[in-house]
């Protein structure tokens, strides 16, 4: 699948770079596609409730009640109708882009399979909502949808008699069938909400609301669109004619023309194959997974920080099993762990201030342990040379500086959230570099969801473990940006190095405290 992923990813890299500039990283719509989907859902739900007040559920009266809303009460019910339609369309649009982004950025495989695969019923239900919605207007588009849909459904051997025959003559038209459509149109969105909830079961602290500024902008856009291009109906349904030209809503009804070219069976087969393929995409091929986080009870005091910080709810607290004086211990569920290391960065036992060979922490990544991180830090520092030496701790998914060597060295982590703040202290107090740069994905676009956010909070002393006060803040710089921003990162490093040259070399701490003392200071420091 990488052949398909690469161009998708490249397109998102460029689009996100552009929109970061226009919107700021925090408001970038591409960073909030799922949340925007939810936002549209609420608009659809609220406007739908209003429409239902004026909607006449009799099959022939339905049309005139919609006409009343559109023409006589255009200023409120008409606007609600347009909002209802356009927000539903936007939901499809945002959903498709959301899927493409998760796919392109490789956030759909491995542990994330659950979130991805539960997206497939969401697609199906969303379409059921939209199609039954168009049915209710009972205009010529509704007639087209009714005839085509029932002809298509009749292919399945579930109905004894062709249901499409209901739409041949006005007399054969069944009021009960229409009531069924209304029922489905109300039930399907509720089931959709339930599946959305399931969709987010394995995402901890899911972001379901867009940032205020983006929400205001999107709502204003929807309102403007509704006023400029109010949603209207076709002519009333007339069963004695064949509908010949329809102004299709391509978001929901875009596949209907296929039925004019393919048989119902072929359309069923194609749809089934496509949906099953999407559903099982996480295993085509499966992700090569790194070893998951492991708990070392000797160093776990049951502080719950790893539970709080894990982006996928993979750690939980369980009663102590080793007889230590603490009530609880951390336990990792390997089926949920993405090996991001954020828990390592959260653990108070994660400190480099220990003698070589002894560095063990409460929770660690077997494939890239805290000891490996310290070794990598020291090796990178060794290569640094000259004045204004910058050690960059960077995330594997964020931008890469275009220039390395000389005064810049790079340590790559699975996620910047893996870096315990004590490493910044260690690097500067030992004089390993003159400044530390932290680099990772753009704000709200972290591959592991919370890397940049937790790092910011730790450095700003708003979240444990906090960066010690003694660390000179002018020697610490942060840079969050999309993957395509390698040049900008290099420029930022250059500026940082210039500033460091003015400051002079970092003062080397002559007496590094022992690990025990550090642990105490970390705790009393907060």
């Amino acid at each position, binding site marked *: 699948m990488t052949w398909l992923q690469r161009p998708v990813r490249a397109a998102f890299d460029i689009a996100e770079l552009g*929109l970061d*500039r*226009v*919107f*700021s990283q925090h408001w970038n*719509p591409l960073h909030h596609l799922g949340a925007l989907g939810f936002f549209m859902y609420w608009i659809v739900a609220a406007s739908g409730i209003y429409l239902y007040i004026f909607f006449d559920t009799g099959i022939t009266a339905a049309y005139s009640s919609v006409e009343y809303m559109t023409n006589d009460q255009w200023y409120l019910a008409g606007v609600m109708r347009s909002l209802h*339609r*356009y927000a539903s*369309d*936007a939901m499809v*649009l945002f959903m498709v882009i959301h899927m493409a982004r998760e796919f392109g950025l490789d956030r759909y495989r491995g542990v994330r399979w659950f979130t991805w695969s539960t997206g497939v019923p969401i697609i199906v239900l969303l379409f059921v909502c939209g199609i039954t919605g168009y049915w209710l207007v009972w205009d010529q588009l509704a007639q*087209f949808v009714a005839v085509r849909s029932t*002809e298509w459904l*009749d292919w399945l051997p579930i109905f*004894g*008699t*062709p249901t*499409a*025959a209901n739409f*041949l*003559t006005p007399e054969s038209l069944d009021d009960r069938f229409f009531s069924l459509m209304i029922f489905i149109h109300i039930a399907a969105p509720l089931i959709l909400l339930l599946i959305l909830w399931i969709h987010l079961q394995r995402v901890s602290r899911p972001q379901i609301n867009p940032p205020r500024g983006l929400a205001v*902008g*999107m709502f*204003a*856009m*929807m309102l*403007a*669109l509704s006023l*400029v*291009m109010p*949603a*209207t109906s076709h002519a009333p349904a007339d*069963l*004695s*004619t*064949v*509908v*010949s*030209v*329809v*102004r*299709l*809503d*391509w*978001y929901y009804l875009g596949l*209907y*023309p296929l039925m*004019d070219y393919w048989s119902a069976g072929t359309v069923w087969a194609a749809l089934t194959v496509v949906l099953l393929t999407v559903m099982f995409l996480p295993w085509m091929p499966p992700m090569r997974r790194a070893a998951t986080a492991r708990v070392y009870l000797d160093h776990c005091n049951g502080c719950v920080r790893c539970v709080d910080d894990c982006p996928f709810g993979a750690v939980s607290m369980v009663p102590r099993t080793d007889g230590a004086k603490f009530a609880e211990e951390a336990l990792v569920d390997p089926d949920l762990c993405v090996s991001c290391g954020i828990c390592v960065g959260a653990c108070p036992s994660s400190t480099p201030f220990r003698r070589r060979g002894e560095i063990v922490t409460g929770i660690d990544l077997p494939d890239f342990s805290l000891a490996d991180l310290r070794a990598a830090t020291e090796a990178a520092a060794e290569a640094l040379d000259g004045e204004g030496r910058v050690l960059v701790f960077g995330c594997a998914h964020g931008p890469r500086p275009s220039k390395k060597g000389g005064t810049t060295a790079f340590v790559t982590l699975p996620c910047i959230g893996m870096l315990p703040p004590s490493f910044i202290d260690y690097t500067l107090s030992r004089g390993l570099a003159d400044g530390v740069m932290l680099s990772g994905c753009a704000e709200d676009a972290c591959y592991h969801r919370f890397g940049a956010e937790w790092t910011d909070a730790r450095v700003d002393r708003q979240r444990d473990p906090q960066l010690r006060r003694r660390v000179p803040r002018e020697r610490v710089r942060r840079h969050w940006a999309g993957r395509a921003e390698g040049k900008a990162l290099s420029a930022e490093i250059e500026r940082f190095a210039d500033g460091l040259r003015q400051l002079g070399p970092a003062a080397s701490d002559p007496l590094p405290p022992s690990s025990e003392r550090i642990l105490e200071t970390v705790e009393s420091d907060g």
Partner: protein
Amino acid sequence: MANLLKWTGQAVFYAVLAAVIGYFAAAPAYRHFAADQALIKMTFTHGGEYKGGCRRRTAKELQEIAPNMRKDFDCPRDRVPVVVELDVDGATVYRASHDPSGLHGDGPANMYQGFPVPAGEHTVAVRLRDTARDSGFDYTREGRFTLAPGQLLVVQFRAEAGGFIFRE
């Protein structure tokens, strides 16, 4: 200046997004049915007669059946297929045998199919056989219609209405 550019950029983004959402919500229009055509739609849900051929059960067979279920004759429940033909202007455009539905072949046969024809005057003849005979038909009907473009002519078979019904 940078801020002005940002706000302008956002306005442009929203305008383009609104245009994309609004445009594809009702455009481009799609022609589903040719402008100069009319449609004949033929449909029925009708069971052919039972195949029959009952057989008297032997005394031994009867002995093996629960007393309340004992019937002297063993009658198969399956029905004969329904054979239909449709002629438009003297040419046969459809001829088929529709098998009964249901696991045991005891349900009604179904048909639902459209036949586009050029708008204008047409003679439409239909025939249906629902008995076991080899040739000939049990029901026939013919009519002459002037069909406007886009008009639907429904040809329905309803046994309870006495046979074929044409609805313009």
